[in-house]
């Protein structure tokens, strides 16, 4: 098993290099060193990146060179900082080394999470109780506005519709496809699944362009229809439809894009779950005279129910934060605002950080139950480890 252990390490290691079984009271110096060591990498990294950034932005810089530099900084730079820090720690007096070392490993991550997630989250919550410039406290005014102004109410209504419809269609189509493809030959199954799955790799912006082409509309008398839907309609003698202007149905036409993107995800995960249902159970049900549909409903679905919940939750979170599709397709016009897109336009277009922050908090509040569920599940796992 262990092949690397025959390697001889030249300097003899100090005794007690292993994790101390019980943490003795740390001295003041140790604490200082721990904090220092946690901060060294992020600060050096940010300084280095800052310098690199100014070089990379030089107009005349060769673009390929820029890419190569970015690669070097990413791969070598950050790793080099850890190497340097480990070297520094080995210079410390022996009694400090092992108490400080974990912080060299974990410190940078904690500092970055603090700066980029924890601090902003608290700050955004505070901003949601302040006015449009973050100057004065306004209590719950922003929340009142968010839940009464017509644009924001439309955004809330639409987001709720997205969150119900997109996961429903993605999961049902994904499940149906996974179950049907399971009965094909191996090769046919793999190929057909790849086609459904491939949109997962496409950006929301790319997908939006792809579907704007599908929904393309030209008023009658302005040339042949080049969007396939209207091409089909005129082909069977109907009038073309301006799909994206049809309130409230245009919301559904936008949802179709996300369904197209997410079904592959649902399908792949559910397919793996279906394959893990023991064959004996299914065989037994068949011998007992159950038809294929009954086997699917009474045996397969109950066996994969926990996966179904996970897939649905994941899709719901993705849908809840959808921004790009609405932003690119309609910019929120024609009654198509959603919360995540409204948040960006309130802050960046209307320059209202209070309302923007409040909408972000609304996004966060909806995922709090999930956060609690994740933590609980994690703690249960730890107990059984």
């Amino acid at each position, binding site marked *: 098993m262990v092949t690397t252990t025959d390697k001889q390490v030249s300097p003899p290691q100090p005794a007690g290099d292993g994790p101390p079984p019980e943490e003795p009271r740390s001295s003041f110096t140790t604490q200082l060193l721990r904090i220092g060591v946690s901060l060294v990498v992020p600060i050096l990294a940010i300084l280095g990146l800052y310098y690199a950034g100014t070089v990379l932005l030089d107009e005349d810089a060769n673009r390929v060179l820029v890419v190569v530099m970015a690669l070097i900084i990413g791969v070598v730079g950050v790793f080099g900082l850890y190497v340097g820090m480990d070297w520094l720690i080995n210079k410390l007096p022996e009694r400090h080394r092992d108490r400080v070392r974990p912080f060299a490993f974990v410190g940078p991550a904690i500092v970055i999470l603090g700066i980029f997630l924890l601090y902003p989250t608290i700050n955004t919550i505070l901003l949601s109780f302040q006015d449009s410039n973050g100057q004065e406290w306004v209590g719950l005014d922003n929340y009142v506005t968010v839940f009464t102004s017509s644009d924001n109410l439309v955004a809330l209504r639409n987001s709720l519709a997205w969150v119900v419809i997109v996961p429903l269609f993605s999961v049902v189509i994904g499940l149906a496809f996974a179950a049907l493809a399971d009965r*094909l030959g191996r090769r046919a199954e793999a190929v057909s699944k790849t086609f459904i799955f491939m949109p997962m790799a496409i950006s929301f912006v790319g997908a939006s362009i792809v579907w704007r082409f599908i929904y393309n509309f030209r008023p009658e008398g302005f040339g042949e229809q080049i969007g396939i839907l209207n091409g089909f309609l005129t082909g069977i003698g109907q009038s073309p439809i301006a799909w994206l202007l049809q309130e409230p149905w245009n919301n559904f036409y936008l949802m179709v894009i996300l369904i197209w993107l997410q079904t592959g995800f649902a399908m792949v995960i559910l397919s793996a779950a279906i394959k893990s249902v023991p064959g004996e159970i299914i065989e037994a049900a068949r011998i007992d005279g159950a038809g294929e549909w009954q086997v699917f409903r009474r045996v397969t679905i109950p066996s994969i129910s926990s996966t179904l919940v996970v897939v649905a939750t994941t899709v719901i979170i993705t849908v809840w934060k959808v921004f790009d599709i609405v932003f690119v397709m309609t910019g929120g016009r024609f009654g198509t605002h959603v919360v995540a897109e409204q948040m960006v336009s309130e802050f960046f277009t209307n320059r209202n950080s209070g309302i923007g922050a409040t909408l972000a908090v609304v996004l966060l509040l909806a995922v709090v139950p999930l956060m609690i569920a994740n933590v609980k599940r994690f703690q249960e796992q730890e107990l059984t480890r």
Partner: protein
Amino acid sequence: MTASVETRQYVAKQPSILARIFDRWLIKLAILAIVIIWVIPTLGVLISSFRPGGLVNATGWWTVFTNLGNNEWTFENYDAVLNSEGFGNAFLNSLSVTIPATVIPITIAAFAAYAFAWMEFPGRQWIFVTIVALLVVPLQMSLIPLLKLYVTFDLNQTFPAVWLAHTGFGLPLAIYLLRNYIGSLPSSMMESARIDGATHFEIFTKLVVPLSVPVLASFAIFQFLWVWNDLLVALVFLGGEPKVRVITLALRDLNGSRGEQWHLLTAGAFITMALPIAVFLGLQRYFVRGLTAGSVKG
């Protein structure tokens, strides 16, 4: 005796051969129908991007099938988009953003994950619980304060600003995934390495990292696609200046300025899609694993 009875019952309850063949064809037809529906959008874009502009905007792309042998094909659209519309530069900018924004979080997360799994330090448990809670925080929560911070430190609209932002947003998932994997490596192996005198740093680089390649690859692909396809973070922290503009933003701008010039739009869309689709097709297996594990991410 009993065996033969059971077999007979079993056979009796099977539908007739004819019905089974019918079922099999029905399944094949259903699969084919869904696949065709799923492929048509991309196919339309792909075909249009190789047709001359005049034709794209005059007749539907599906007419190429009724007009076989009489079609014109061209690379001009790609040439126009890559050069005069700035997609060539934007492609390189996207690479400059995506590669560090993938490698930096992996490096930082791997060290942290090792510490969480195999080192003792005060606060280990509750810090990790906090990271689990951060998994689903929407990145919208960070946008406004982070932008203010960047403006204060004059970092806004630089590549490092986006690298760091993506690092921050990607770290919780990366640490969570890697810690679960690294923590499941056999402890006997770690102990014997330590008995042989290896330091934590040596165990990490020579033992843990090589053994963790599959999970590192999964997260790398996941993060690569996420950063490459991102519009929001690039829009907010990098902006639309041609020298820094990434490819998703270039496509958004093209959509705004040439919204009805479909020969350009389709070529532009296909350029943005090409790399992620190639990565995806090449490394599908790792990607699926990353997705399964990433199901908890916000």
